[in-house]
């Protein structure tokens, strides 16, 4: 269906200030369509060639009562003409569509930053509901900022009089009005959004029309109005990205696609078994429609059934994958032990969130590393790897498949709520050129034993039920190294324990030597990170190196086993600083293994690190 609405996508002429990068935060009620607004802005920003990083900040509630602070939804984007590593420490611009959004987000804004607020929502009742004692527009609360009050509600309604919509429906277009204004501010084309609206509301062209009219009206307001508070047009030039085809991708999407790619490269069907849980569910949602890509998703009755059905699938020759967040992973630990004991491949994805217990489900944290490395009964080693950014999820997922199938072992892949929801531009790989994995099923019946192994990797052969002449029994009881029969023999148990440990330790020979992301391979201070702290550490180290400090950045993908050269690498630094969004977990491994006096920088607030926090700590160490 071709839309009836034509685009008016003129180029901006007004004089604009050139800036290198900008942080914008959209905020409003859950019903205001903030996440949509954010993703449209993201797309348009990507299309002009900026690098960018986004951070959606959902409320915990599904749909909290209108106007409450706990119902506020926000979306932050950092974009620029240079490499963008994080969604930004503090917004240069906050667009608040109601007082609650202002209340909740105000203290994130950079001092001297700009705030646009929809004055149409600033009724006494709404202000009270948001927890303001007086009127912040008048009582000096906003003094540190450049504030522009605009009655966005009224402007939107005025723009839509001709559409015959109810007031409620008109006000639903407010977000597009605001988006139009922000598009004007940063010189964005509206075309992509107009196309998207036409597609999205193909069956309801009047709604498409109203949204486009609001978008245009907000844009026109920018072009014509005399805005106070220093709002004016800006130009943010394109970043220099490597040539290629790009898209924006969220961590969950990249992870889902990486699993599909991994399974295809290994020539396997994938059975993805999961039980919904925030923030892991989005991976299930991304995979569920991909049946024709060789993916079977199974929503199990609980996390235990999820991991068990994945194990069953692996046993029968598919790639078994299960996914959850901390509390759900806790429930899976017994079964992961079974996969260890029976030496079956299994990928376990842990989308970490703030805990303990239910904690703060929508908030991010990196606090399941201990659980991943140590959280099982008995000596039960598995491989543990972590994704550092949305696009990295794709590669890490493939690596998880590679290790699981090559070493016949569970692999725990750590990601977190921040990575899962954040998005960034991604140079789309050509899957056909990625290296295939040599996965094969045993068929040699001669001298068959279920414990026959690859002499190099020590991996047990993968023997499929259905293969004639290789009928055998496996299970969670200790088995004889040679025959695979149940064994209580002391020496055999020692041998099998050593085998399990050695097999996982041997992975260190099969992963790249650890390098430095930035800085020298030896020096005064190394910042060692893993997972989603990549962005802030990376930018902080770059900033500090620009001012001449001797800092290096080391970022681990492989948590267990650790890269073979890591000890030597770390020994080359006077100080080792380990920022983690937990109370100190990777650092336990580093200290116990290498006996280095690494120091932790620990933030457990449910929020990602700010660049400035890392910078300040590094400076303090180097100046101490």
């Amino acid at each position, binding site marked *: 269906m071709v839309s009836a609405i034509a685009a008016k996508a003129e180029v901006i002429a007004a004089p604009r200030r050139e800036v290198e990068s900008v942080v914008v935060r959209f905020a409003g009620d859950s019903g205001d369509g903030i996440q949509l607004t954010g993703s449209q802005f993201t797309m348009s920003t990507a*299309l002009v060639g900026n690098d960018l990083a986004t951070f959606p900040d959902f409320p915990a509630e599904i749909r909290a009562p209108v106007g409450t602070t706990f119902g506020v939804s926000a979306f932050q984007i950092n974009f620029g003409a240079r490499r963008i590593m994080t969604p930004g420490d503090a917004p240069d611009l906050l667009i608040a569509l109601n007082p609650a959004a202002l209340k909740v987000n105000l203290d994130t804004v950079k001092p001297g930053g700009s705030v646009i607020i929809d004055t149409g929502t600033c009724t006494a009742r709404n202000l009270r509901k948001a927890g303001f004692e007086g009127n912040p527009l008048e009582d000096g609360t906003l003094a540190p900022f450049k504030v522009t009050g605009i009655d966005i509600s009224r402007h939107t309604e005025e723009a839509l009089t001709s559409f015959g919509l109810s007031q409620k429906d008109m006000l639903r277009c407010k977000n597009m009005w605001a988006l139009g204004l922000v598009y004007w501010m940063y010189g964005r084309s509206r075309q992509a959004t107009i196309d998207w609206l036409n597609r999205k509301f193909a069956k309801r062209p009047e709604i498409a029309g109203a949204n486009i009219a609001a978008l245009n009206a907000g844009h026109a307001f920018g072009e014509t109005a005399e805005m106070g508070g220093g709002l004016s047009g800006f130009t943010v030039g394109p970043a220099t990205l490597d*040539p290629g085809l790009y898209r924006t991708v969220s961590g969950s999407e990249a992870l889902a696609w990486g699993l599909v790619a991994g399974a295809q490269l290994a020539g396997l069907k994938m059975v993805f078994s999961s039980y919904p849980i925030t923030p892991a569910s989005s991976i299930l949602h991304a995979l569920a429609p991909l049946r024709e890509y060789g993916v079977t998703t199974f929503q199990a009755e609980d996390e235990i059934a999820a991991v068990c059905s994945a194990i*069953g699938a692996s046993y029968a020759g598919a790639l078994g994958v299960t996914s959850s967040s901390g509390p759900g992973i806790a429930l899976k630990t017994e*079964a992961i032990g079974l996969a260890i004991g029976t030496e079956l491949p299994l990928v376990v994805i842990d989308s970490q969130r703030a805990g303990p217990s239910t904690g703060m489900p929508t908030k991010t944290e990196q606090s399941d590393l201990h659980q991943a490395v140590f959280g099982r009964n008995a000596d039960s080693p598995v491989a543990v790897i972590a994704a550092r950014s949305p696009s990295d999820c794709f590669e890490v997922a493939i690596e998880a498949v590679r290790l699981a199938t090559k070493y016949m072992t569970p692999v725990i892949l750590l990601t977190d709520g921040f990575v899962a929801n954040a998005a960034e531009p991604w140079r789309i790989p050509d899957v056909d050129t990625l290296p295939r994995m040599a996965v094969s099923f045993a068929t040699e019946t001669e001298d068959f034993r279920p414990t026959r192994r690859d002499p190099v990797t020590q991996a047990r052969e993968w023997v499929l039920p*259905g293969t004639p002449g290789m009928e055998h029994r496996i299970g969670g009881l200790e088995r004889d190294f040679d025959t695979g029969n149940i064994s209580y023999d002391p020496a055999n148990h020692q041998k099998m324990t050593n085998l399990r440990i050695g097999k996982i330790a041997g992975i260190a020979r099969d992963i790249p030597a650890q390098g430095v992301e930035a800085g020298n391979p030896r020096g005064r201070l190394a910042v060692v990170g893993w997972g989603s702290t990549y962005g802030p550490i990376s930018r902080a180290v770059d900033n500090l190196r620009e001012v001449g400090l001797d800092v290096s950045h080391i970022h681990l993908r492989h948590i267990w086993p650790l890269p073979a050269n890591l000890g030597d690498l770390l020994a080359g630094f006077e100080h080792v600083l380990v920022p983690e969004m937990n109370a100190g977990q990777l650092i336990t491994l580093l200290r116990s293994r290498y006996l280095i006096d690494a120091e932790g920088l620990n933030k457990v607030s449910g929020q990602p690190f700010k660049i400035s926090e890392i910078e300040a700590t590094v400076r303090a160490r180097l100046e101490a």
Partner: protein
Amino acid sequence: MNVTTPPKKLTDKDFASDQEIRWCPGCGDYGVLKALQRTLPEMGIPREKLVFVSGIGCSSRFPYYMNTYGFHTIHGRAPAIATGIKLANRDLDVWVISGDGDGLSIGGNHLLHVLRRNVDLNILLFNNEIYGLTKGQASPTSRPGTRSPSTPGGSIDYPVSAARFALGAGAHFVARSVDTLQPHLMEMFRRAHAHRGTSFVEIFQNCLVYNDGVFAHFTDREVADETQLRVRHGEPLLFGAAQDKGLRLKPGTLELEVVKVGEGGVGKADVMVHDETSPVLAMMLASLTPPAFPVALGVLYCHPGACYEDALAAQAGPKAADGPKANLNALLRRGATWTVQEGGRIADA
């Protein structure tokens, strides 16, 4: 991918593995093992297509004794693992072996869900009303008052009825037998195997170490005739050595009563006929207990419906069935994309 050996004539011995059996001498489990090893050859399934999946318990050692594929998993989780096996390969013939503790205590949730999903599995639940392997604690099927190391004063829980539970969960096939009834067991295995979907078979099994004789009141040879009701679809619900006792609906109620054919004007025609497709009758039969009633054995309920894997395959369409086909590169390029050219120029894609 694998070559399937053409089914050759196998015997029960072909299904016995080389492992020494580690059940107590005299355990009821032996009889079930024997019956299954004797039934399988008739079915003509190649050995390599058979997978026995079990949890933990004495009964769950079963797979070790079968010369087929076997997976001795963890306590209570066999139905979930078996579901995963079927998701990966629905050509396999998967049997789940569980106990009253394994299946109805720790594993109750998985049993519920596998039954309602109707995954094509044959589930044999060895009910000895006790935890054998952990040395004799009361189980969820133990009768009130059962004294055990964990219930020295006698168990105070109401027991769960495996068959009633299965019916409540929406099972499509529910049958019952006894460890010592070889031909009957074999018949149940045939029926269970023939049913596409989850077939649930409860087997009353004697644990001679920790719960000896707990079913003797209806399994002992001397009393069996008068206390066992062998139900068969389309046949009247008769029992007794002379097949002269029957069940009928107590007039004006929803309760069964025992009647004697030829007494009080009761004729054979007055006796209720077994309808294995009736969930209500199945529930009534499952609830009968001695001494007032006989114990109902046989296929209490069988009402086929689409099984999970078939529904899944139907939904996926022919494409998905034979492996990854769709082009991942195309998927990754769906939606808004743009090209960064040499030198950084941007072009919409």
